[in-house]
């Protein structure tokens, strides 16, 4: 039995973690280019075609909600016959629960989904696949994201990106919203995934199958969308301006656009802005 399975787990077997944005505020807003049900039907066909591509392919779906995240589907569990039914049922339960958790209605605008949570969960699952032995499907993450970036999630999302980079897991992103997502641009660029913002969302299924369906090995033979220039400039903590040059606190690495007397993040007091040449004399003085 073992030699057979070892042959089966070739380099074209994939584990696809799909993170679906279920933010109700986004899907009900005017920013959503198509209805959630249309979106779902296209995604479901895509998931089915992934599973048809290879018998050993595995798909897991995580819902990224406004107040929580949860696993809603795992193709390795349960019967294959009622795939869609079980997914939809779980999804409905999730959406209802997510709405119950929504205590304050004071969210202005669309609000951001908890992408950091679902990314972290996906990475934990992928680590389990890595631990399962030397033979495992090649994991990758596909973020289908619509709502805008939440600045509060920046550190957590960057942590997830670096962890994915370390374990060589590419993060693909398919942005459904009207704006580009700076987080996902960075995620795909750093981890070597594909970032795509489809122009015509009626043909979402077409985009998904041509760009995101191929396994990692076959990707090298395809002409996939090239990463557009990712802006790695930082924004300062004081005015949130994007800056070319700035001052960094040596203790906590906070970014400021002007020279301050005291760091607003860690509270260290600063001396004069320092250059390498003056530091030598200073050091010898006492």
């Amino acid at each position, binding site marked *: 039995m073992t030699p057979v399975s070892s042959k089966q787990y070739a380099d074209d077997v994939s584990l696809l973690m799909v993170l679906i944005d279920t933010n109700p505020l986004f899907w009900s807003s005017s920013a959503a280019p198509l209805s959630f049900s249309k979106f779902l039907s296209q995604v479901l066909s895509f998931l089915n075609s992934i599973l048809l591509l290879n018998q050993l392919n595995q798909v897991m779906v995580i819902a990224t909600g*406004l*107040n*929580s*995240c*949860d*696993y809603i589907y795992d193709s390795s569990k349960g019967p294959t016959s009622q795939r869609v039914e079980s997914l939809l049922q779980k999804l409905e339960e999730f959406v209802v629960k997510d709405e119950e958790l929504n205590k304050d209605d004071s969210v202005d605008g669309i609000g951001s989904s*908890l992408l*950091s*949570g679902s990314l*972290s*969960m996906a*990475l*934990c*699952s992928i*680590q*389990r696949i890595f631990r399962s032995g030397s033979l495992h499907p090649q994991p990758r993450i596909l973020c289908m994201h619509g709502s805008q970036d939440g600045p*509060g*999630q*920046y*550190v*957590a999302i*960057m*942590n*997830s*990106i*670096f*962890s994915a980079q*370390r374990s060589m897991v590419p993060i693909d992103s398919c942005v459904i919203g009207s704006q580009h997502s700076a987080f996902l641009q*960075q995620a795909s660029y*750093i981890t070597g995934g594909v970032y795509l913002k489809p122009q015509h969302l009626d043909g979402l299924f077409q985009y998904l199958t041509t760009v995101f369906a191929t396994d990692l090995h076959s990707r090298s033979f395809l002409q996939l969308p090239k990463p557009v*220039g990712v802006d*790695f*400039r*930082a924004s300062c903590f004081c005015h949130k301006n994007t*800056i*070319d*040059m*700035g*001052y*960094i*606190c*040596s*203790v*906590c*690495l906070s*970014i*400021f656009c002007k020279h*301050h007397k005291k760091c607003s993040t*860690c*509270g*260290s007091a*600063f*001396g004069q*802005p*320092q*250059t*390498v040449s003056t*530091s*030598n004399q200073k*050091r010898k003085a006492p």
Partner: protein
Amino acid sequence: MSNYGNGKRKPVNEEEDDEDDDGNERDTEAWEKAYADERSWESLQEDESGLLRPIDNQALHHAQYRRRLRSLSSASAASRIQKGLIRYLYLVIDLSRAAGEMDLRPSRMVVVAKQVEAFVREFFDQNPLSQIGLVVIKDGVAQCLTDLGGSPESHIKALMGKLGCSGEASLQNALELVHEQLNQIPSYGHREVIILYSALSTCDPGDVMETILKCKKSKIRCSVIGLSAELYICKYLCQETGGLYSVALDEAHLKDLILEHAPPPPAIAEFAIANLIKMGFPQRAAEGVISICSCHKEAKFGGGYICPRCKARVCELPTECRICGLTLVSSPHLARSYHHLFPVTPFDDVAPSLAPNQHRRPKNCFGCQHSLLNPGNIPVHCVTCPKCKQFFCLDCDIYIHESLHNCPGCESLRDSKSVD
């Protein structure tokens, strides 16, 4: 410099011959050697009734990790979130005759080089804005192998090319050299030395105590990892300068000890003066443009980054602009260090036999959905996050704290966000 290296090569060969002779003198049979080298007894342990059984590696590993995590969190709780994130570290490698000893296989020096390679990579992963330099001690003198720099590959290449041991070790010479080099760095940087010391003696030209005092005055944090036995002078050095002294028991222990130095140490206010550092965030140069790069001094096609102050082209980030001296980084380099400032709280242990609360306990790990029940519905050992009260398996616990630096439970809650 190259002449210097060639001059050194000859004695190395002689040294190797000597060792072959030593091996013959010991005159051990092949079967004896197999036992002596494999150390098969180390993979067994005795249980309460004196029976021998294989070591439960996973449980041991996890217990070890928990201990480390707890000691780390207690240390960081005492101090504020200040860490020495900008480090200038010299790694001193003892390549004296003692490094040729074969108690670690194939020899101490090869094992040390392997661990240094792993350490250098891990170091730059965790401290992208820091710099390392390599120094070797050989024939009683210290020699600077690489200057302070931020590229892991160049350090590793330089070390692997110079592997060979001879002569005596000299602690004083190494410290003097490092002291001289580290005196030139800006005052916001944390000066550190890690010495991997194989020898049991130091052969110094003067008073080593004076040099230690000098290092102490210059706020250089010296740590020593011994490979043979504890030495008073090393212990004294570490005590005086606020470093760590440890002696490796075996290869795995050596690895742990070295990697302990990879996360940034807590910042000590007097050691480095907090300051604002001017940095540039260069943009990627347009594709298809030919420009002369300032680091390799040759024309390059496309790619690269443009210094925002002097518009010179550099190939890689992070670096220092060769023309105007501005530190060039990109925002992900800064973000890579943020997890040191906002660490995940250690998870609490959950006793496996928690009978009354059985119904409250979820069946699956929140992170990876792995079952928290052994076959036969016996609950396994698991942990819980004190903030979001989600349950995690031990593997996820390690992954979350060592690599991910996010608690998936807390990240999936909007409420916890607003508290932060």
